[in-house]
């Protein structure tokens, strides 16, 4: 077995920490007076954060020239899926007590639920095909399929935005955090476009050259 790298350890510890913290807060009665809502909100934020980290791996590895980042992408994405699953299970099981009738009534009328559910359904095949077996079997299509994450992340940010009281079109209310997450998702999407990425890679090369000259 290969010795795990520092980044690898950080990824796994960092991804489990929020869940451990929620469990700790549950047993120490620190999940507010409304623990179910607290679990929903915290796992939701964790899922989105991990998806954005996963999404950032590829552009950052080219821009920073840090190859190992691309090898941590999959774990980060799967952890994101783990939190999204806990988030959805909490909503269906704890919040609504598996009462399908009231869930369906709300699913049909609430945009934030519809958007969140679509994002989860898009994420599901990515998690299921994250194994090496599927990677080989799908070949080129695997990469195509997994580009869906570029749609999923902005959708999750939209789901967040739609679930708060404020109104983006009027720039009023508690919109700061969803807008922040959404901007990062869109920025990472923009980084996919090669001119921008190439420009940043060029900047890094020049910086490295400069540093090399003065060393």
């Amino acid at each position, binding site marked *: 077995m290969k010795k795990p790298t520092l980044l690898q350890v950080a990824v796994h510890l960092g991804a489990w920490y929020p869940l451990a913290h929620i469990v700790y807060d549950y047993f120490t009665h620190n999940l507010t*007076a409304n623990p179910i809502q607290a679990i929903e909100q915290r796992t939701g934020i964790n899922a989105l954060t991990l998806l954005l980290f996963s999404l950032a791996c590829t552009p950052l590895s080219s821009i920073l020239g840090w190859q190992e980042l691309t090898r941590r992408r999959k774990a980060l994405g799967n952890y994101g899926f783990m939190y999204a699953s806990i988030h959805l299970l909490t909503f269906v099981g704890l919040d*609504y007590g598996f009462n399908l009738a009231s869930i369906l009534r709300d699913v049909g009328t609430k945009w934030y639920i519809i958007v969140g559910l679509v994002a989860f359904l898009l994420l599901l095949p990515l998690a299921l095909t994250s194994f090496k077996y599927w990677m080989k079997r799908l070949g080129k299509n695997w990469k195509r399929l997994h580009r869906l994450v570029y749609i999923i992340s902005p959708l999750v940010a939209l789901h967040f935005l739609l679930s708060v009281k404020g109104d983006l079109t009027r720039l009023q*209310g508690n*919109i700061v955090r969803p807008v922040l997450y959404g901007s990062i998702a869109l920025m990472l999407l923009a980084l996919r476009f090669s001119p921008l990425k190439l420009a940043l890679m060029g900047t890094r090369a020049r910086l490295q050259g400069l540093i090399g000259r003065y060393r």
Partner: protein
Amino acid sequence: MSEKMSSVAIRSSEITPKQVYLSRRDFIKAAGVVAGSVALAACAPQAAQTAVQPLPTPQDTSISTKKDELGDPVNSFDDITNYNNYYEFTEDKGGVAPLAAKFKTTPWDVEVYGLVNKPMKYALEDLVKQFQPEDRIYRLRCVEAWSMVIPWTGFPLAKLLKEVEPTSAAKYVRFETVTRPDEMPGQRNVLYPWPYQEGLRMDEAMNDLAILATGMYGGELPAQNGGGMRLVVPWKYGFKSIKGVIKIELVSEQPATMWSTINPGEYGFYSNVNPQVDHPRWSQASERRIGELQRRDTLMFNGYAGQVAHLYDGMDLKVNY
């Protein structure tokens, strides 16, 4: 008139001798808090936060066994004082109590003015003396689909309004929250049209259920629950029950309200609890009572239909949401 009176209000709060006199108790309270924080300095931050939450007077423990008229028990003092939607402090419901610990609720002055024959300015203690608050156990239903049962002490708003003699031109009542960005950091957030404002139609305001609360759980009204004084209109969503009220103005036109200004498509002027009128974000058909695991069905007018449904006879509540 209103301009003149508001400038008076600011000046009077700056009169030092009165503050020195009244803040003696705050000083003692603060000293206790400091001693407590020092003792807890070595503990986790969360423990320290819990310790500095204000308990204005020892809570009456017998109250925790009381029930509302539907037979549901009141929520714990701890839940009521640590889970608060009070954006003047922060958007985080758990973060309000620690911030509110530094908020001064004495002295507290309330102006009643506008279309009235006898505009008045009261100190909170005089209001309490004159209008004799009574116990009222009310359900509070938040638009976010959670609810609590809260034992308030307060007096009917109608009593105060009768005292100032509204003129025949007065059709609505406008309420305004205190502006103190130094003590209320959320008021520095430019994404909100501060100050918080709310309004009631005259007949709603005169309904006996509408009270001005000056206490809770047998003690003073904690700052995080809207102290010095707040409105409580239990048949409407929680945001209508404006906290930290310092101005009550009688007006002829329907006043602008905080949430209907931010998002008019979602928050209307009436905002009656109504399981049949859906809200784009939260299901209004059911709710979670804080402390319970199962959701429960939301009641029309939050269970107060008998007392208030007649106010809306002939109105389409889907249009007037």
